[in-house]
């Protein structure tokens, strides 16, 4: 009996050896993200994002390319800051000016003069194909955005945040159902939203009226709250876990739970992490053979889902999401923040 057990163990060891190698990059990425949560000095959103993407790409992320692209954009941003005069005169005008430059990079066609020749800089566009990354996770990646210049509500705000931090300012991510956008605060306008997929500054009513945001979800900070840097890392942790699930569909859930637990610790009302944790628990429960234990575990799971509901989370079907996103374009005048004429040209 013990002998066969050892053989079995050995067999599994060999079997998992290959998986473990791939696994290693995910573990490393987790350790990096975890260290960012533990110690503020380690925080670096760019590093966090690319470590996650690199893990999924089995270490094949072209770091030289993405870094050079980001450096290039940073230079462009500096050029814009120096050339543009903003109609804004408050104490925080330097910061607002920097934000405007990043917004331009994301959204505007910019003529650039190099040695008397005018080149056109083309902004990042929205990619309506595979918005949720069902076909391939890479569609959600910032590296894909940098390469193809098209992205979605996942990669666009992430890149925006990376660029902001590269030029030394903050950017807060904020959540809506199936959606990520940017929140800033300025002296003149208070908190305002930046929506990169439609390139406008929408008012909060746009998100509230989507029909899938329960007031409790706003009150509890599930949605629409300006997230701090640690909470943003929580988002990245869930990306890591999602990627892991795609890469290793038959995993036992240990790694995913580790990621979600970590994410929930720094952002307790983070609905996506709570749901992923509950789903992973369910996967584990299904394997329980003892009927009694199975039912006990199922009861526990019900509590988890009840908690998520109580926080105000409601599932938004994916096709509804696209309709809602498009509504911003169609009802632009209704949802546009009219105070933001500072750099809202179109």
């Amino acid at each position, binding site marked *: 009996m013990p002998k066969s057990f050892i053989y079995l163990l050995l067999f599994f060891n060999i079997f998992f050896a290959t998986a473990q190698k791939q696994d290693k990059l995910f573990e490393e990425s987790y350790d990096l993200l975890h260290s960012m949560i533990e110690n503020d000095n380690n925080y670096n959103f760019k590093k966090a994002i690319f470590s996650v993407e690199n893990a999924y790409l089995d270490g094949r992320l072209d770091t030289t390319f993405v870094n050079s692209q980001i450096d290039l954009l940073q230079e462009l941003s500096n050029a814009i800051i120096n050339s543009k005069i903003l109609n804004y005169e*408050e*104490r925080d005008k330097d910061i607002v000016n920097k934000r405007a430059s990043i917004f331009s990079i994301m959204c505007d066609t910019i003529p650039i003069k190099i040695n008397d020749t005018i080149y056109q800089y083309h902004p990042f566009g929205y990619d309506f194909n595979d918005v949720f990354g069902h076909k391939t996770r890479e569609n959600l990646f910032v590296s894909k955005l940098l390469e193809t210049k098209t992205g979605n509500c996942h990669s666009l705000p992430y890149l925006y945040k990376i660029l902001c931090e590269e030029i030394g300012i903050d950017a807060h991510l904020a959540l809506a159902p199936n959606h990520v956008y940017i929140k800033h605060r300025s*002296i*003149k*306008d*208070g*908190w305002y939203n930046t929506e990169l997929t439609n390139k406008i500054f929408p*008012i*909060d*009513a746009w*998100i*509230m*009226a989507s*029909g899938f945001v329960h*007031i409790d979800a*706003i*009150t*509890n*900070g599930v*949605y*629409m*709250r300006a997230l701090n840097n640690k909470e943003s890392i929580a988002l990245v942790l869930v990306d890591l876990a999602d990627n892991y699930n795609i890469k290793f569909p038959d995993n036992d859930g240990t790694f995913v739970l580790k990621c979600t637990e970590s994410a929930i610790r720094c952002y307790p009302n983070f609905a996506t992490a709570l749901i992923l944790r509950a789903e992973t628990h369910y996967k584990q429960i299904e394997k329980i053979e003892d009927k009694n234990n199975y039912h006990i575990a199922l009861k526990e799971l019900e509590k988890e889902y009840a908690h998520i509901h109580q926080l105000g989370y409601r599932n938004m079907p994916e096709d509804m999401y696209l309709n809602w996103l498009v509504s911003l374009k169609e009802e632009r005048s*209704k*949802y546009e923040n009219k105070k933001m004429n500072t750099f809202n040209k179109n």
Partner: protein
Amino acid sequence: MRKIILLLLLPILAFSQVNLPSVPGTNQFQQYGMPSFENKAKVLVPNTTNTLFGGAEQQKSNQQLIQEVEKRAIEDQKIKQEIHQDIATINASFNYSLPSFSFLPATHYYYEAFERLIQIDTANFSIKNTNFLVENAFYENQQDKEAFDKNIKNSGEFLIAKMKELGYDLNSNSAKNYMLFQFFSETLQLNSNGLKHLPFKYDFEDFQGINDWSKMFVTKLLATKTGQCHSMPLLYLILAEEINAEAYLALSPNHSYIRFPDDNGKWHNIELTNGMFSTTSSILNSGYIKSEALSNKIFMQNLSKKELLSQFYVDLAMGYIRKFGYDEFCAKVIEKALALYPNSINANMVKSNIDTHRFEYVMFKLKINPRDKNQLQNIRYYPKAIELLKEVNQQYDTIDYLGYEHMPEDAYMQWLQSMHDEKNKQDSEKLAKQFKGTLIKPLKN
């Protein structure tokens, strides 16, 4: 020593429906560096080499010069001392608070009302009596409490009688609230005695009570059958209290409405100004509710009894301000309102107005124009004035932090109208229908 003085320039406007006072404009902070004011008088130092080579004459004139300079320096010093003394005496004797209106006899009705409000049990009080107390202070206690009570009592009896006629369950909160909703929005007649009640109408004229504050009052609503979003929900609450129904006041920008739970614990919004059930999204569509306002719970939440009482303090202060003006009495009332409900947006708005008026008054007394940068620097001699300025700025920060955003009057009117549009009407009818369905069920047999 350098101090930074912040100043907010603000337009003093007064509008809004739920007696929101002036709205702080966009915060305009300005920095003023404070130059050191100890400018030392320059004293000429006599050149000693001259005494070696110069004759007696020269020495004498030098001596004179030195004396003269010293004399002047002493005089300068004296003048400076006098200035400092003057400032010190101003600082000591100067009154940094708003002058009281207590010389006006009519204010005493307000002081009395305030004393009585303080006695009230915060967890359990009569909305009817408290509201009457506040309104009556404005009318200088000329209102007839008995007639008012009788009016409410009759209405309550009317409601119960009608419920019986319609076969509504008298113990159902859904039924009671639906009856109240009908009372406000439909023509009702009792079959037994032919008594008829017409719906209340929205009064578009001066709905903010700018020309006539009594437009906000329940007494006015009862007398004229027209009211607005302040008086209508209050009357609803008074009648709900009368027939023992559970209902709450809730706030939205420039607005207040009713929320109540049905028998299944589901919450409904009633918009009395147009007699409709409103959906959450139609309220959010006003466009002036920020997520921060919701997470700080300043809008769209049931007001507890304590928070409602705070609202009555605000009403009292607002009536006083409209009738007399700003003084330290309203500051005292608002302090009480904030103690009961620290995040109250209405109380915080009134406080910011009082603080601003106080600061402007003090500036006026000190002959400083706060809108003039150079003049404003003189505020540095008056530490107490600096404190007042800080208080003003802090109050604006508080309001900003609460997530408040000013809703202009035309935007408000537009939103009220939009509540009337086809989609909202359909939503309302659907909700009302669902409701009616549940009312019939609890019927015995």
